[in-house]
């Protein structure tokens, strides 16, 4: 179980003068499903090339099943390691069965031609990947998803101990992406094949891999379970952009949501804006205001709502209440305290009912300008109480109504 299938020590490699991999040291144990992530150009595919014998190392060693890689013949290596590339084009009319049979090459020689056993293995590989129905069709005429399954069948026919995947799903639609990943997972679990996969899609890596290795600048930057590796600081570092990380409720794995690359112009002074919200309507507004450098506070939001999530993600101060409980006066007092020195108080697109009408108590005594989203009026479940409340506030100070968030952002 704990045999080291792949062991890299101080691996350096590159193209010409350019060194892509600088110092990689890690190991992969038998039966593991490891995802290799990293931004473009960090050397993920280069590492795959080094293992599969396409690129000689400049320094360090790679051990495959305890054997020094550079001493292996292509044939010996191919009996242990199979590679599934990104997409695989063939300029000649080979049938699907021809292509899968090529997987048997490492076991054939001048003296040993393909025999019954090889045909049986090819058959089995095609069955496992659901490709036997088009065995006689030309590989060239298949769709991308079908081709990828054929290449997977070829890899299976190699009877490898390790499968290397280089962005196996990047050219496929989601149906075929998941299909290929499920096939690989099955191979990993049932045949105990060790998998090392370069994956572009972090969410795919998080969902299918037991362990994730993140490369950065030609070295291992993070290594651990998806929960350990896919965190805010690693991901921002990797992609150089704003993103959000949340737990996928279905798979209980971290999931990233990319937000923005371009940085907005920062506000000159840190103006304080308070947002009253509580459902999911203010997520983008909170994020944008925070990004622009405003001091944002939020309240009162129920735990578990989208607005609450984003506050947690971005570290925005907020007054929170337990889910599905009415907002108490105590909470609102806390909220009012937060709003005290706010220059602007924004009531976002939030449906009002009896339980959260409390959010509007006491606004008339504050110094900040009040903006109110018109949509909130049309999703009024208070039976008139909301309008009454607004009138009360309106008697003391001006309420500016607005139609969408961009309008407010421009005005600010």
């Amino acid at each position, binding site marked *: 179980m704990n045999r080291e299938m792949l062991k890299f020590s101080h691996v350096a490699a590159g193209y010409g003068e350019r060194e892509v991999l600088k110092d990689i040291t890690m190991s992969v144990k038998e039966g593991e499903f490891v995802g290799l992530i990293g931004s473009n150009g960090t050397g993920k595919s280069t590492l795959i090339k080094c293992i599969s014998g396409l690129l000689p190392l400049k320094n360090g060693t790679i051990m495959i099943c305890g054997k020094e890689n550079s001493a292996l013949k*292509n044939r010996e290596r*191919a009996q242990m390691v199979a590679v599934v590339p990104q997409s695989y084009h*063939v*300029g000649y009319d080979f049938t699907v069965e021809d292509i899968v049979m090529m997987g048997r090459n490492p076991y054939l020689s001048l003296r040993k031609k393909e025999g019954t056993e090889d045909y049986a293995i090819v058959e089995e590989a095609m069955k496992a990947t659901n490709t036997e129905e088009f065995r006689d069709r030309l590989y060239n005429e298949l769709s991308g998803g079908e081709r990828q399954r054929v290449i997977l069948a070829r890899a299976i026919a190699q009877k490898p101990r390790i499968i290397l995947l280089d962005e196996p799903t990047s050219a496929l639609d989601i149906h075929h992406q998941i299909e290929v990943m499920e096939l690989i997972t099955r191979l990993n679990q049932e045949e105990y094949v060790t998998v090392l996969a370069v994956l572009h899609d972090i969410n795919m890596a998080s969902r299918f891999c037991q362990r994730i290795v993140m490369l950065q600048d030609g070295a291992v930057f993070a290594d651990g379970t998806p929960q350990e590796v896919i965190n805010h600081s690693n991901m921002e570092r990797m992609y150089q952009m704003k993103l959000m990380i949340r737990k996928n409720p279905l798979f209980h794995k971290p999931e990233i949501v990319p937000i923005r690359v371009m940085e907005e112009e920062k506000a000159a002074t840190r103006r304080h804006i308070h947002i009253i919200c509580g459902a999911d309507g203010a997520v983008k507004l909170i994020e944008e205001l925070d990004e622009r450098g405003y001091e944002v506070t939020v309240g009162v939001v129920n735990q578990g709502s989208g607005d609450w999530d984003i506050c947690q993600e971005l570290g925005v101060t907020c007054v929170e209440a337990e889910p599905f409980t009415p907002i108490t006066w105590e909470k609102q007092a806390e909220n009012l305290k937060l709003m005290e020195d706010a220059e602007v108080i924004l009531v976002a697109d939030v449906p009002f009912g009896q339980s959260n009408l409390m959010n509007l108590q006491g606004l008339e005594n504050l110094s900040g300008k009040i903006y109110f989203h018109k949509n909130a009026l049309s999703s009024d479940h208070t039976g008139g109480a909301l309008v009454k409340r607004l009138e009360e506030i309106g008697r003391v100070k001006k309420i500016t109504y607005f139609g969408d968030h961009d309008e407010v952002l421009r005005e600010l």
Partner: protein
Amino acid sequence: MKKGSRKWLVAGSVLLCLIIMYLCTLTGVASISFWDANRILLHEVFHLDISMEGITEGSITIIQNVRLPRVVLGFLTGASLAICGAGFQGIFKNPMADPFVLGVSSGAALGASIGIIFQFGSGFLGMNSTTLLAFVGAFLTIGLVYNISKIGKKVPMATLLLSGIAVSQTLAAAMSILMIMNRQDMDQIMFWTMGSLNGKGWSQIVMILPYVILGTVLLFTSCRELDIMLTGEEAAIQLGVNVEFVKKKVLFASTLITAAVISVTGIIGFVGLVVPHVVRMIAGPKHRGLMPLSLIFGGTFLIICDTLARSMAVWEIPVGIITALCGGPFFVYLLRKMKRGGNFS
């Protein structure tokens, strides 16, 4: 193509080839009747006890020492060029490659020109000086091209093709200079470069046969690897193919065969280019079918061309002209067809 149907296709082509060989042996400028020719064949080749009444010595010599060796040499030449073409197209992964793509022909032609001009008296191993120098020229050229493009232990195919073109052009220029400076030999050199089986007999066949057999064995034992290399060099390495070794093996085998054959016949174009194409259209890209079928088709094609060359006109036409005349337009037709299909195979 299924294994079974491939066997039938090979068997059928062999039969067709034998029939054409037979018919071409009967055809010729000398008037030997159909019946007489058959009698000579049965008596001299199959040693059957048949009365040879009324058949002149001359007729027997024509059949036995002129037509038969020409048919056999024609087959050998066509077969050799076609399998070398298939091999080159395999390692270059390029359907436009032919046995001459790396400059074998220019090297051989330059060697032959030197031989023709300087008329060295002695030969070697049964070769006259022209043949010998053509053979040496061909080998030296490939050696030069190969070493120019070698980077470390690897030989990138694109570099190999380009240096092949460069060396080839240079040698052609050198040959032109030789020709201009030795106008009296111009005709002979011109004829050599057009390729012909005229005046060749059993001794030439015996001379080139060992090279052809050795090269053919080397090519036929690379079929599985060549198939895989057609799908890409990197993939081939990952599937356990020793790509650099296969390249060297195919290059060496093809050069050996081509150099031996053209040193005897001169340059015969288009066979190596067109035949593997046609076979690929019929039997698919797998070399296990492609190689034997190219051998049979190439051989048959050249026998037909040579028979046309020697019997169409009063003067013998160099067979290289006939192959180009048939092959050129046919190749254009293939290109047009491919353009529509968008596929090279």
